[in-house]
């Protein structure tokens, strides 16, 4: 770094150094570390020994891994399918000016204040077939063993995820809608476009980048549903909700196979970066930098 003259424009590079140092040490270095550890054998306590591809073999031939990948993918896709339309429409709805909508938007925010552990514990109690909402509402249909049934549990998880995260995305869409110039709608009205037509021809196209931002966050976030699922179902029943991050945790910290867990971690990084890149591309090349910023 050159020492600049007193007249030189702009701050010197040292201002970025503290943040850079933290990030390099606790994010970038671990990222390289996980790749390294995936070629070793380590039980978490003892010595680390080189293992070549053995850990990868363990991780990839484990039948639970494929299952975890599928569960992760399912949760990701269903989350998008459920959350995008709901948060888009709620965002459009709450962008209105009536006061009661503002009040609704305030209340929508509440789930964001709860930790995933709290949400999971609340829903566990609420969904209890004997003591929860089912008997409370007097609807036998709701008194199912929601978390104990391999067929139902995935949908419960997707619902709880939506419960917790739709409010955040609603907020993003609300902001996006408020940036659409009112003149667009006035022009459309003069041309005789109906309300639904206006939604599909103005609101939706104008929200393109908001949709990409929000979806990117959802997709990346779906790799982070760990806490919620860990407390809600612990991956069960059986392996029904054991998604990849949870599988990694259990392999590493419960089965004490850090090598195989690291291999799963590498897969997680590749999926995360890959999806972020794909979603970014959807936004168009020339917008790519600002799309990344949007994420």
């Amino acid at each position: 770094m050159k020492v600049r003259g007193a007249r030189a424009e702009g701050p010197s590079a040292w201002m970025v150094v503290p943040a850079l140092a933290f990030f390099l040490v606790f994010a970038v270095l671990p990222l390289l570390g996980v790749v390294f550890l995936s070629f070793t054998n380590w039980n978490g306590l003892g010595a680390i020994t080189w293992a070549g591809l053995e850990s990868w073999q363990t991780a990839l031939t484990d039948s639970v891994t494929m299952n975890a990948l599928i569960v992760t993918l399912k949760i990701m896709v269903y989350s998008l399918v459920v959350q995008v339309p709901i948060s888009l429409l709620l965002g459009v709805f709450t962008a209105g000016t009536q006061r009661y909508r503002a009040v609704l938007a305030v209340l929508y925010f509440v789930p964001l204040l709860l930790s995933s552990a709290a949400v999971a514990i609340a829903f566990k109690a609420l969904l209890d077939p004997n003591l929860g909402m089912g008997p409370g509402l007097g609807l036998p249909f709701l008194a199912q063993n929601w978390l104990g049934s391999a067929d139902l549990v995935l949908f419960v998880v997707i619902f709880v995820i939506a419960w917790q995260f739709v409010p955040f995305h609603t907020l993003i869409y609300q902001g996006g809608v408020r940036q659409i110039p009112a003149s667009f709608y006035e022009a459309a009205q003069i041309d005789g476009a109906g309300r639904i037509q206006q939604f599909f021809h103005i609101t939706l196209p104008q929200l393109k980048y908001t949709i990409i931002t929000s979806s990117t966050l959802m997709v990346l976030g779906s790799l982070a549903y760990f806490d919620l699922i860990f407390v809600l179902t612990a991956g069960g029943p059986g392996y029904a909700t054991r998604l990849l991050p949870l599988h990694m945790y259990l392999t590493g910290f419960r089965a004490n196979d850090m090598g195989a867990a690291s291999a799963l971690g590498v897969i997680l990084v590749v999926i995360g970066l890959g999806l972020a890149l794909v979603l970014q591309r959807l936004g168009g090349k020339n917008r790519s930098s600002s799309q990344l910023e949007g994420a």
Partner: protein
Amino acid sequence: MALVAEPTQDTARQTGARPQGKPVGRTSPNLLGGLGGWVWLALIILPVYYVIITSLKNQAGFFGSNPLAPPTEPTLANYRTVLEADFVRYFVNSVVVTLGSVIPAVIVSFMAAYAVVRGSGRIIGSAHTLFLMGLAIPLQATIIPIYFMITKAQLYDTLLALILPSIAFAIPISVLILSNFLRDVPRELFESMRLDGCSEFTMMWRLALPLVRPAVVTIAIYNALHVWNGFLFPLILTQSPDKRVLPLSLWAFQDEFSVNIPAVLAAVVLSTLPLVVLYVLARRQLVSGLTAGFNK
């Protein structure tokens, strides 16, 4: 059903086509959009309501009554049970970890964002790219090496073990939001300060910081929310009960009080209260800051 009607709500607002305040207007197609909004509200409120009323029930009331009925004899006994079970210690731990992470994270992120927006050169450029890429790194994936590093540094089972990685993972989003706001500060302001002979350092603290204070508050709250609710780092990097933070204590309470669900839910309420207070105090700031941060 609401799926079709809500847009009409919006377009009605945008076009000003809402019927002229006549009662007739209320039966217009807006009804379905509103209905969807209220249905979602019910979905949001029901679990919250259930948690609060159950936390006020005694064991007999919990097993005996309708689960959704309010307690006939409300009691704070569950709250006492939780407070006696070292809840205060966990609370203090959470406060220490949250403040210890958020304050440094905000300071280093602000300096970095300032350099990114106002500066140039290879180091700053690469740092910026790196932070942006950091947004896509799943935190879970790095947890094993972080565990390794923390153990090697003899920091395992300390609060510092939670603070250090939390700072790092708060940086990308903070730099992003802050630099979005800093870009809006007019260049002329910096130039006139420079003519007055101010150093870059003075400009950063005296000019830029006050101007983007809303963004600083936003990221402070946003990061506080994340760290306060963080579960994975505490789960992996601490062990002893006296190092527990709140989310982890909820999980532990679940085992300790496995039959006493009202007590567990009282712990849930207590652990959320500080955030509710924070939210009530800083809602406008947080919401407007986040909205701007993600839509610029």
